[in-house]
């Protein structure tokens, strides 16, 4: 009995030594994951997936809106700027839109864990450097996304360890300036560790392009902050807002980063010397239909290789014109505005926006609607009125009566009857002689793409959408079926950043900046160089980068949103067939307010998003929230 007891006790002694320390089988320990280069690759893929890239899956609810229920009506960020209207929604920026807080700090934690692990990995020194560079690039990208939304944020520079006291993990907000400085510092670390190999992962130039973009953003905030003064605790503690004096250093940083990319010569514009505007328009379209075909221009691509939830995206189903819907019930949501169309230059008058002139008196500010007494200019096709407009208009928007996927895209708002009375935006038909004419240009809803409110499928601005759209294959009528890749950084943006930084700061190489501006215009078929001015740079930026989700942040960083969107309505171009001209086929155009739309006003507090969860994280809230 005694013996048995001793054996039992001995057994007890050993039993505690490990039998109960079971490794969970549903988790991979850090050493195993990071110990295997393949494990690191998988981890990196996840980090890249989390990058806050404002691409085809970026909507008001945030990033990667292509899984779960992706049905958000196709209301894109462009529709909160003057670039586009939605066919139905009249929404505007809300307090809850475009947040990225929890996800941001999750990505930062994930990347900090990686950076911790790098020294312990059994890989070559240059591979370690590359990982360090990528880690810092991702971290810089994350803090950039946080800073532009929230101003100064808590900087978690290294992994935090929970040791039973949650309060010890709470980090107060840094000032806005410290936050921007940290973003640029991370970009520098990334650039100095990264190589120059091109691919789907960050290289030296990706880090510099990010620095160029972030520095320009910070510089603009400093320079233009006084256009929208704010007050409150966050302001007095400098958590939002920067001194105007800070602008110079940020502009210099932008110039330095942009110049570094340009002088190294690793990138250039895609097809920089088109023979004609028509060729330029097609080149521009191709650049976005497949950015992989333009490795000379595109610095970082986010790929959408396969259709399916969390893989493909929904741009083609939401935004192609109604006539090519191929059975999909909700096409045609992106309606480029007349404001955007007006902005593009005419080749006949370089350096000026060329508003669409519809009447013989040339008044482009008359939005009073059709009036038989007015003298309208007659055109023989529905798009002759856009003749000589910048190639990029033709590459960005589907214009009335142009061809798309082999279809003549019919966008017509009505007709003027032979007696001079007009039928506009109503379904109607009239027989004159032996021919029957339809207000929307064709008898049935499958045969036109404009103005009929049927299904919310037809443009209400007179323009449909082309940029990024896949012309090669029919729409697959289902969710997440688009596989067009997204160009996050491209050389043209770097050139535009340089031009803006030089012209706004009055420093740097003005000749190089003017060349940068005009190189982009040359690629768009322009042959006359224009001077480097603030207006020219901004117009160029808006037309070149249209719909790349840049305009929203341009309005924010230049503090122009509250003046640009003060009781603002957008406008439409109504193409009407003029039956008074029969037997000739003639069209006239009428400039009007976008039908069924309301004025929209930007609230200055929206220059910053509210900080989520201040009840538990104890952070100082942004002004007026």
């Amino acid at each position, binding site marked *: 009995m005694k013996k048995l007891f001793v054996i039992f006790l001995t057994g007890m002694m050993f039993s505690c030594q490990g039998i109960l320390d079971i490794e969970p089988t549903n988790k991979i320990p850090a050493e195993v994951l990071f110990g295997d280069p393949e494990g690191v690759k998988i981890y990196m893929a996840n980090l890249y997936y989390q990058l806050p890239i404002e691409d085809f899956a970026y909507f008001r609810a945030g990033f990667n809106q292509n899984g779960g229920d992706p049905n958000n009506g196709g209301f894109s960020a462009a529709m909160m700027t003057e670039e586009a209207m939605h066919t139905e929604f009249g929404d505007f920026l809300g307090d809850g839109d475009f947040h990225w807080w929890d996800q941001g700090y999750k990505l930062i934690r994930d990347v900090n864990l990686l950076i911790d692990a790098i020294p312990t990995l059994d890989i070559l020194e240059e591979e370690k450097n590359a990982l360090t560079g990528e880690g810092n690039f991702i971290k810089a990208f994350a803090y950039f996304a946080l800073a532009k939304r929230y101003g100064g944020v808590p900087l978690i520079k290294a992994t935090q360890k929970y040791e039973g006291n949650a309060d010890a993990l709470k980090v107060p907000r840094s000032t806005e300036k410290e936050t921007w400085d940290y973003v640029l510092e991370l970009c520098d670390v990334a650039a100095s560790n990264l190589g120059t190999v091109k691919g789907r992962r960050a290289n030296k130039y990706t880090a510099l392009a990010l620095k160029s973009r972030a520095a320009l953003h910070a510089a603009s905030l400093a320079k233009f902050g006084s256009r929208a003064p704010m007050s409150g605790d966050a302001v007095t503690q400098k958590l939002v807002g920067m001194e105007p004096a800070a602008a110079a250093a940020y502009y210099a940083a932008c110039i330095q980063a942009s110049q570094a990319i340009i002088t190294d010569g690793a990138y250039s514009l895609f097809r920089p010397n088109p023979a004609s505007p028509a060729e330029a328009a097609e080149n521009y379209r191709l650049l976005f239909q497949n950015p992989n075909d333009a490795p000379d221009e595109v610095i970082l691509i986010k790929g959408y290789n396969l259709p399916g939830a969390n893989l493909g995206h929904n741009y083609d189903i939401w935004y192609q014109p109604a006539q090519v819907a191929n059975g999909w019930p909700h096409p045609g949501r992106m309606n480029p505005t007349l404001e955007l169309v007006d902005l593009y230059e005419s080749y006949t008058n370089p350096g000026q926006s060329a508003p669409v002139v519809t009447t013989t008196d040339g008044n482009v500010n008359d939005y009073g609607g059709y009036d038989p007494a007015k003298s309208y200019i007659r055109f023989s096709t529905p798009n002759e009125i856009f003749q000589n407009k910048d190639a990029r208009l033709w590459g960005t928007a589907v214009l009335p009566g142009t061809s798309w996927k082999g279809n003549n895209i019919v966008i017509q708002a009505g007709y003027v009857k032979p007696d001079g009375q007009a039928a506009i935006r109503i379904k109607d038909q009239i027989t004159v002689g032996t021919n029957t004419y339809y207000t929307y240009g064709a008898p049935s809803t499958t045969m036109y793409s404009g103005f009929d409110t049927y299904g919310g499928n037809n443009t209400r601005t007179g323009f449909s959408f082309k940029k990024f759209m896949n012309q090669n294959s029919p729409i697959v009528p289902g969710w997440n079926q688009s596989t067009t890749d997204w160009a996050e950084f491209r050389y043209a943006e770097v050139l535009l950043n340089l031009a803006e930084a030089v012209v706004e700061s009055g420093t740097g190489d003005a000749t190089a900046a003017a060349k940068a501006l005009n190189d982009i215009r040359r690629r768009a078929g322009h042959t006359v160089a224009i001077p480097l001015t603030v207006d020219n740079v901004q117009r160029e930026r808006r037309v070149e980068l249209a719909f790349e989700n840049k305009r929203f942040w341009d309005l924010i960083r230049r503090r122009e949103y509250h003046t640009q969107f*003060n009781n603002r309505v957008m406008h439409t171009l109504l193409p009407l067939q003029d039956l008074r001209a029969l037997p000739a086929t003639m069209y006239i155009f009428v400039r009007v307010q976008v039908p069924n739309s309301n004025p929209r006003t930007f609230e200055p507090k929206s220059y910053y998003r509210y900080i989520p969860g201040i*009840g538990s994280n104890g952070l100082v809230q942004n002004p007026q929230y």
Partner: protein
Amino acid sequence: MKTLRYILLAGVMTLAAACEKDNFDGPTAGLSGRIIDADTKLLVEQDIIRGTTIEITEHGYDPVKPQVLVVKTDGTYENSLLFENTYSVKPMRGNFVDVPSQDIQIKGKTVLDFSVTPYLRVQDLRVEKVGNLVVATFKLQQNVAGNVVKIGIYADKDQRVGEPMRLGQKEQDINAPADPNTTYRLEYNPDEFKTQMPLGKEYWFRVGALISIGEAKFNYAAPIKLAI
């Protein structure tokens, strides 16, 4: 059966008792008042969108989020659903010289008026129809340093018309201090806005001016109804 009934009865009674204990009283207090021009004793006109707000911060909680009251266009305000407590009350981002925060006990229907100095006063206002036009003439009295950024006459179908809420407007940039001797004149052409506001009906007009102080709001005269 009888046991079951007792159990049910006990259950119901527990539930009833529980409800009583769980529920706090609803808000019984309220705060209302007026924003009054210290000199003229008139209400200070406001915007309904992006206008003056009053922040009230309840004591005894930390962190605490201030509640924001939007001041009505006529310069009055009210929140009739507040809990009895001490609050810090401060008008924020208004169209008058800053008023310090004050701690008050809100109990029952508490009334709190603010006596303020508006940045600008629109005086001697006449709005009348001259031919097809609506012509506003007025003088501006400036009570603080700075420039008048712009003046404007705003039109809408709604009485709460103002710079951020209008269907038609005529504005003029000034960018200079107000001249007390100048009679400012604005000519509003209803023809320009007839798609939004068809002619032959009555509309509300309001004349306002904006001072170049950060976050300042427009100062207005009272709205006027006019047929065009």
